[in-house]
Each structure stands twice: as C-alpha cells, then as structure tokens.
C-alpha cells in the first residue's frame, strides 16, 4: 500500500512530512508579519514573492542579454588566443555587484533618512562608484593588452594570406 501511495505521491512519505512541516513554519511566519500593525495589507507578501519574480524574470534575463551582446562583440574582434570577453565580465561583475548592493546610496534614494540619522547628506557615493568602475575596466583593459602582446610574442607568425 505504501508503495502505491508512494507512486501516487511521487516521493517517499518523509518527503511529504518534511515539506508539510516546512510549509507550516513558513505559513506561521508570514501570518505573524501579516498582522495589520506590521504590514499594510499584503505588502509583505508582495515583496516576499515579488523579489523572486523580479530576479528570475528581469535581473537574470537582463544580465544574460548583456553578456550575450558582449560575447558577440568580442567574438568578432578578439584574437582567439586571448578571449576578451572575460576582461569585460570581471570588471562588470565587480562593479555591477557594487551597484546592485549600494544603489540606494549611489542613486541617492534616501537622503532625508540619511540626514536625519547621520547628520550628513549622501555625497560622493556616485562619484566613488564611477571611479572604481572606470579603474576596474581600465585595469582589465591594460591586462588584456599585456596578454595579447605576450601571446603574439609567443606564437609563431600567422601564415600570410
């Protein structure tokens, strides 16, 4: 009988017990926040599910598309020995992670709260991020040129066409 129930359900009984327990804790936790003292309407639920949707349907396709463009551009131009794409990916990933985490400061989204809290205006974050970004791309570009020169020096001259 257990075998039939298992075929019907699709996994072992422990799978079911574990998931029911976990889902019960999740429902309990969400219900604690949905108290009108702590959440306006279902706002907390919107953020809970919305974050995953925005990540999967906006952020991932967006950076995948950017990466696709970069791949096509570099494939056409770069010498095969030194792939250029990763010299774009590294500075872009480092700078992009900083923007993703610190966009409220970089784009000055909460100056009022910042002044009330720290006594200072939000200043210089955008400049510092742009400087870091420029520095990263510059350093990566220079490293690329060095690697291309080194590979040319190493490789035998290509046969003339």
């Amino acid at each position: 009988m257990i075998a039939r129930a298992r075929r019907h359900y699709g996994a072992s009984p422990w799978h079911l017990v574990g998931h029911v327990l976990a889902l019960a804790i999740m429902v309990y936790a969400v219900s604690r926040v949905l108290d009108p003292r702590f959440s306006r309407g279902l706002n907390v639920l919107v953020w809970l599910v919305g974050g995953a949707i925005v990540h999967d349907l906006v952020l991932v396709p967006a950076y995948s598309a950017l990466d696709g463009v970069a791949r096509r551009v570099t494939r056409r131009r770069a010498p095969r020995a030194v792939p250029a794409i990763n010299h774009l990916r590294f500075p872009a990933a480092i700078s992009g992670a900083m923007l993703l985490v610190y966009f409220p400061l970089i784009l000055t989204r909460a100056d009022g709260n910042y002044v009330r809290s720290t006594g200072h205006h939000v200043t210089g974050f955008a400049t510092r991020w742009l400087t870091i970004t420029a520095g990263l791309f510059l350093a990566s570009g220079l490293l690329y040129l060095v690697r291309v020169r080194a590979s040319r020096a190493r490789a035998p001259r290509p046969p003339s066409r």
Partner: protein
Amino acid sequence: MRAPPGPTRESFWRSPLRGPWLTTTLGALLLPLVLVVGATGFLSNAAYQPGLGRNALLPAGGVQPLRFGWPASPAWLYAVNQGIHVTVGIVAVPLLLAKLWSVAPRLFTWPPVRDAAHAIERLSLVGLVGGVIFEFVTGILNVQLYYPWHFNFVVAHYYGAWVFLAALTIHVAIKLPVMVRAWRERGVLAPLRVDLERTGAEPHEPGSLAPPTPAAPTISRRGLLALVASASAGLLLVTVGQSAGGPLRRLALLAPRGQSVFDDGPNGFPINKTAATARVTPALTGPGWRLAIAGGERRELSRAQLLAMEQHEHDLPIACVEGWSTTQRWSGVRLRDLAALAGAPAGAVLQVESLQPRGALRRATLGHAQHSDGRALLALRVNGADLSLDHGYPARIIVPALPGVHCTKWVASLTWVAS
C-alpha cells in the same frame, strides 16, 4: 505534452557550465555563509534582551531562539556580531546570484507540475528563493536607510528569516543525495583543474541541469568561481572598513558609514540619530538639566555634581545593528557607583529613559550583568571633550557589548528595579 518553445525547453539553456557539480559547489559555498548570517541575526535579537522591560521590538508570543542574558564582556561582542551579520550578508550576494543563475532553468521546468511531490517541492521553493531574496533585499536596503515598502522592517526581516530557514532546511535535506552524487561522480575539486580549452558540459540526463545542447564555453568553471570571488572581494573591500575601522575605514568607499560620515574633532565619529531628529533641544539639556536616579531612594544630580564624582575612562566600541562600529575613549561615572548612590536593590535591572520625547528607543532596560560591569558608564565626555549634543550631551549610556540604540543618549533618568 511537448514543452512550448522558449525557456520551458531544455535546449533553450545552453551554458556548458550549468550542471549538478556547479550547483552543488555553489550551494556548498553559500550554505555556511547564510547560516552565519542567520545565527548572527538571531544573536542580534538576543542582544536587545527582549525579555526585559519594553526592549522587545518583536510582538510577544513568537518563537525566539537563542535568548539568554546578553553579557557585557567581551566588549567587542556586539560590534563583531553585527559586523559579521552585515558584512558576510553583503559579501554573499554574488555567490547567491551565481547559485540562482545555476538553477535558473528550474523555474521553467516542463510540465510545471509532474505529481503531488513535485508540486509541494515547488511551493517550498517559492519560500526558499522568495525568502532568501527578501532577507537580502530588506537587510541591504535597511543599512542604507531606504524603505520603499509598507511593512515593519524588524518584524518582517525576523520572520522572513523563518520562512527562508524552514525552506532551506528541507531543501538541503532533499538535495543532499544529489550533492553527494555530483561530487562523487565528478570529484569535489577535479573540475577546478580544467582550463577553458578543455571545459565541457556535464553529461545531460532528462531533468538534470546540464544542457542537452551546450554552447562552446567562454569561461572555465574555476573562472566562474573566480568571477564570483572577485565580486565578493570587491564588496568586502568597500564595506568591511565601516565595522573593522583602522586603515580599512578609508577603503570603505561605498559602505553607508565609511570615512565620509567622520568629521574632525573629538566628537567627529558617526551617530545614528541627530538631536534634531530626536527633538532634543538645547533648552532641554541646558543648565536646568538634572539626572533623576531612583533605587531604594530618589535623587537628582546636576552635571556638575556628576563631574565631581569619581570619573572613569574606557575605550569602548559603539556598535550599530546596521553593522558599523567605532571605538572611542569615553569618560564619566560608573553605573555601579550611581546604583550604590541610589540604593539599588541587589540584582536589579536598570531602566534608562531619555529626554527624547518620542520613539520606541527612548527607553531601554539593561540586565544586571550589563549595568554592573566595571566599564559600564554614564558617559559625560568623549576623547577628552564634553559630549556634543548629537552624541548625547549632557550624558549618555556606554556599556560594553550593548547594542548602540540601547546606549541611550540625552539620559533623563535611571531607575533600578528589582527583577
């Protein structure tokens, strides 16, 4: 039924790196980080001593593990706990993104539901992915004081952790065999020894993350891990100085409390709330100010009388729940001397009230171990100068390992109550 064209077809996903080994490895790297962030988060709640007075920021009656009398020693305990919570959380972001990228095809699995087990598993994955993104987004925006939502941050961030950790526990339990198999088949480290030229896809099986029709690789697996590590290292570098201080402070270029919130002078270190915001005016703190102390008896003390008492000086950190901290040289009257003066009952807890007219944090209750520590001060001066109004003039609480918001500024009264 055949999947409609697009991401629901396995052939849509072509990165040769995706596969059980990559997801296993990214998951195994991410897991300890999120567990550290989770544990320090619960400890952060314990540090507020929610069982005392009106300290609790969470509604009563919920499950709150790791509750105990928060000690006053070592003095750096709270600073380090919060520094780890915030910094490790931020540094884990690139790893989290990579982990989610590696399983992106799963969202579009076709058919969407195979059987009951698959359905319940997918439902708990909503809690897992939604929960982890919710925790990271709310935490990261909170340290930047940006609140684009309509819910209580503390309550939502706390219970969001329950959603995530419940989903994570069951996820790890059912994926453990998959992880063991991936590492057994491919080796734990062997794929990292493969350079770009020899990088290939893992063998495709129906339902596996490895693509059926992989594209040519443009980065090796170790290259991808290096990419994630550099993004994490970059975040670490521009963040950790707000907690670690010292020469690293200058490198905290994007941290909310980096070098740019420091001014010159003895009172130049950062604050968490200006006097203007707290509506504390010079009129309230002028020569008419008196500190009311009450234990067995009541007394009022002027600032001059407090300064005439034995002064003690200690280097103590002030540390914020948002992760930043700074150690300064504080001097003032020991709380235990004031307790003796007020005839405080043995083992009492200390209720501190501020001049600040409103706000949840205008009062705090300190446990006996906290206010009876020899370094626990009613500070009057810092770095050899009087406290500035923004730092809590005429007097503020400084207790080792006490959360910054409980180091009450503009103290109006101290009351020792038998617990």
